[in-house]
């Protein structure tokens, strides 16, 4: 009987990709499962994921036997310890099998006409891998985050988002979850109200089927707390191109658009139409007239016309689409007093480089590129109802004036999520306000001041699970409300029926937030 290959590295130090201060630490055992058998035999035909799946089951059973907690770490994109546990940590990135296109019998009747757009993605598949493989099939992800190195399950589990005001965040297009839970038992979880995969699919997978709305809507943004998620299914879109347009403004020229999504007066290429992706990046220290402290970045969806957009430069010098954390985290916080705004402005001119009057056409995978490590990048992000954005900006300016720190303020707009603990849950559109920078004493002071100011301002808000956030149950309750929190807890208790099972898939952050019991 062949065994799945699992590299085990005991007493390993783990840190996140941005080596954020206070994130990670020593790990008792670091597991790296592979989609390979130890006797070099092949996986069952059409099921390249089986060794990896068996590896995850084996790791869960080992953690149970050893009385250890276990979590999966993805690409280490999160800027806090949401993925981390010092017991058993699983590096899932080599579990990257992708199945693209299913026969009609494997999806429910409502989806049979589009079954060839269905994708079964193993947990470690990175968004850049998905972009690349989907593009070969003339397909694309419905949306993604600001960069492309996250694993699909890691990005989903923390509600990673772009600015897709008609799509939502990544969890909002996930249709089903394949979860390895207590005892190494695997389950296929999807909505009861909108089932996507047929019984034949679940039988082919060999999992136990659970159709339950609350369980699905809890586990899809469950930050690793429902088990090791082995794979997900979603429906890809026909391949499209993204047309990027960036223009620099003064703050007061874009405030109306940023707070109401009224595009009039911005002079965008498609006029007053709300773009597929609308984003405003403010320099909080350049708020005056003539200072150019606001950058508007929009993306329009365009039809893909073969052979596609003009090719990338071939000299290897340019990798487009670095995210804000990669740029803003480098130097701004170390600027001499009084020069912070100028230094940040210089960085933003590079990171959000204006294209106006031209625009730049690219495939989705190229429009959002790599996140380069920053040696201490950090960030804070809040989801806010669209009708309270003006108030929220007032709160933020009061904090940045009192506690300057090297971070821009980036606003994106995401369709409200049904996921119970998604920070993008405010309907119909959630404005996410992100402040990426470097992990410094001044940033930590400002973050704490931001937590306090929003708590006092009576503005509904929720924090991104993968960034800096207040870690206490009262904040979770205040953010999401009693009903959502109770439903999430009940769904988890119904799925992980024993206290030992719930402890198995918990960590310190979950404990601190009062969500692990």
């Amino acid at each position: 009987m062949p065994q799945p290959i699992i590299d085990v590295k005991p007493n390993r130090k783990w840190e996140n990709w941005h080596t954020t201060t206070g994130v990670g630490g020593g790990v008792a055992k670091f597991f790296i499962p592979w989609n390979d058998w130890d006797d070099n035999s092949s996986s069952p035909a059409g099921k390249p994921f089986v060794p990896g799946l068996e590896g995850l089951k084996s790791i869960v059973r080992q953690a149970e036997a050893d009385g250890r907690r276990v979590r999966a770490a993805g690409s280490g994109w999160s800027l806090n310890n949401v993925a981390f546990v010092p017991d058993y940590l699983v590096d899932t990135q080599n579990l990257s099998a992708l199945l693209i296109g299913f026969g009609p019998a494997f999806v429910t009747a409502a989806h049979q006409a589009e079954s060839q757009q269905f994708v079964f993605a193993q947990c470690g598949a990175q968004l850049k891998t998905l972009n690349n493989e989907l593009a070969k099939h003339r397909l694309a992800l419905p949306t993604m985050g600001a960069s492309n190195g996250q694993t699909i399950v890691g990005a989903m589990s923390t509600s990673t988002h772009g600015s897709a005001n008609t799509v939502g965040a990544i969890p909002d297009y996930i249709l089903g979850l394949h979860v390895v839970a207590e005892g190494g038992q695997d389950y296929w979880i999807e909505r009861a109200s909108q089932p996507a995969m047929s019984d034949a699919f679940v039988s082919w997978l060999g999992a136990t089927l659970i159709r339950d709305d609350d369980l699905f809507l809890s586990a899809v943004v469950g930050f690793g707390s429902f088990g090791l998620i082995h794979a997900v299914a979603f429906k890809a879109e026909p391949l499209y191109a993204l047309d990027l347009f960036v223009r620099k403004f003064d703050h007061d020229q874009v405030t109306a658009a940023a707070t109401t999504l009224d595009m009039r007066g911005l002079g965008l290429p498609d006029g007053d139409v709300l773009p597929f992706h609308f984003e405003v990046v403010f320099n909080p220290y350049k708020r005056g007239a003539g200072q150019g402290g606001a950058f508007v970045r929009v993306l329009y969806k365009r039809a893909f016309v073969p052979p596609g957009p003009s090719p990338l430069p071939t000299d290897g010098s340019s990798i487009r689409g670095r995210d804000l954390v990669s740029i803003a985290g480098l130097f701004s916080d170390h600027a001499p007093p009084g020069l912070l705004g100028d230094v940040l402005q210089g960085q933003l001119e590079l990171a959000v480089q204006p294209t106006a009057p031209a625009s730049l056409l690219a495939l989705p995978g190229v429009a959002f590129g790599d996140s380069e490590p920053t040696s201490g990048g950090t960030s804070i992000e809040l989801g806010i109802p669209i009708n309270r954005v003006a108030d929220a900006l007032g709160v933020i300016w009061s904090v940045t004036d009192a506690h300057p720190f090297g971070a821009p303020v980036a606003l994106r707009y995401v369709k409200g999520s049904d996921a119970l603990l998604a920070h993008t849950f405010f309907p119909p559109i959630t404005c996410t306000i992100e402040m990426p920078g470097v992990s410094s004493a001044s940033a930590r002071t400002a973050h704490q001041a931001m937590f306090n100011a929003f708590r006092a301002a009576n503005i509904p808000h929720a924090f991104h699970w993968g960034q800096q956030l207040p870690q206490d149950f009262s904040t979770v309750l205040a953010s999401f409300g009693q009903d959502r929190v109770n439903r999430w807890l009940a769904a988890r208790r119904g799925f992980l029926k024993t206290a030992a099972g719930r402890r198995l898939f918990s960590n310190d952050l979950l404990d601190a937030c009062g969500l692990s019991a």
Partner: protein
Amino acid sequence: MAHHSPVLAGYKLLTSLFVGLSAFASSGCYHYAVAAREPPPDSQTVAIDRMNPQTTTQWQFAWGLSAMPVYSPLECTNGAKDPTGKCLHGSIDPCHGKGIGFYQVNVPWYMLLLTGVTLGIVSGVNTTFYCATSQGSESGPQSISGPQ
């Protein structure tokens, strides 16, 4: 009002300069990287296992006149070794056949210092590689009765 002599002021300036340069040198080092790309149409840089960097120090001697060092490790499958260190279930390359996706060379300040002190006789760099993770894609099952 205290008056400082020009010698003292110069000493303080030199001290400040030294401390500043030391702080800069201790945190910085030269680094270079090469990233592989996927085929068109996306041509993305390949996905890598970011959580499992494989770092080693490679040495050169006698101004590079020694043989070119080539680092090409193998690991025991599942780490299974007998007491003598022989692999029980064979060996495998660290990237399990997926290849290297990202390769980085770091030249720490102390290596530069070593090269200088030894007049180039001993020189070293830290190399780090990250394995590629993509295993491509295939079609899902198409019929219940057919190949699944």
